[in-house]
């Protein structure tokens, strides 16, 4: 993960967002090869340490996709993810990496932004912030 292009890590909920990713694929959207997508059973499965490790391993931006809060297949998973994302954002602010490098979106196939729109937005944001000063710090 030492490419000059921004490295974006995505944690994507299997229930809502993976289906969206499928639809986007059918529409022939192209993801940048510098985007790594981790499919999880629920956005609530994404732990604080998972987000921290993504940044430790060189991610310039991290996205978490979860279901709409009142439509989470596991009841409260996306709500828990939202709280963890908020906590990690405070840590990123505290260490000087910047909270804007981490965002969570609640997606629905029926309406709202599409994953590729969000990805492009994050890539633009990261380009404004600059590549992460942290590269390959922790355990591989």
């Amino acid at each position, binding site marked *: 993960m030492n490419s000059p292009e921004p490295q974006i890590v995505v944690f994507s909920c299997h229930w809502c967002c993976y289906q969206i990713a499928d639809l986007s694929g059918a529409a022939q959207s192209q993801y940048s090869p510098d985007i790594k997508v981790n499919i999880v059973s629920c956005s609530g499965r994404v732990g*604080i340490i998972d987000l*921290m490790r993504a*940044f430790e391993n060189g991610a310039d931006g991290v996205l978490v996709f979860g279901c709409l809060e009142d439509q989470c297949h596991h009841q409260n998973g996306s709500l828990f993810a939202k709280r963890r994302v908020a906590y990690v954002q405070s840590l990123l602010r505290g*260490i*000087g*990496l910047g909270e804007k490098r981490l965002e969570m979106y609640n997606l629905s196939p029926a309406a709202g932004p599409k994953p590729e729109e969000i990805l492009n937005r994050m890539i633009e944001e990261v380009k404004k912030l600059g590549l992460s*000063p942290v590269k390959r*710090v*922790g355990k591989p």
Partner: protein
Amino acid sequence: MIISEQKPLEEIRKMVADYDKILILGCGTCATVCFAGGEREVAILASALRMAVKIDGKEKVFHEHTVKRQCEWEFIDEISEKLKEVDAVLPLSCGIGVQAIAERFPNCRVLPGVNTCFLGLTEEAGIWSERCVACGNCLVHETGGICPIARCAKSLSNGPCGGSVGGKCEISPDVSCAWQLIIDHLVALGQLDRLEEIQPPRDWSSSHSGGPRKIVYPFQEGNQAEVER
């Protein structure tokens, strides 16, 4: 349970500033339960500190380890070899654990990563409240199982003070009036007449006010009390 809270990241960064190799040591008991210093919190803190020093352009190494409890010699002795590789230890344990490490390893610099707050219970996951101040003379059988020393803002032995409003203490609407709780409990138990007995002025010598405390269990084989007996 001893309830503690991790220190703010900025304070921890200042503490580790003078050291290059630090062992972040978690505690698998109370500190884990209150999300202050368990294995997970050790990993998160280590990750944050590694990235912070990298951004600052410095070189530091953070080791991670968690022991079952930091208040027992047999568990903290596990780290004796690891201490040879570090300049300082950052225990994420209560004040007991931090001091146990300092006492067991007097040549090791100890940096407390956690603030020890109170003795309390878990009301629900993520919410802890104080229940005991370790006064050394428990009299909760007189007050329906509720401790006025810990839970009354004035630690009144003979309450209420009359300052409560709607069952809430005058210091804050978020704090229940302990004496309201006591009265409610005694009514439910049919023992309200217990309050007719006035408690005498309390002997505080059994509490921390009487100085640092120690208990020697007289029947343990091998300890000094047994030898003297």
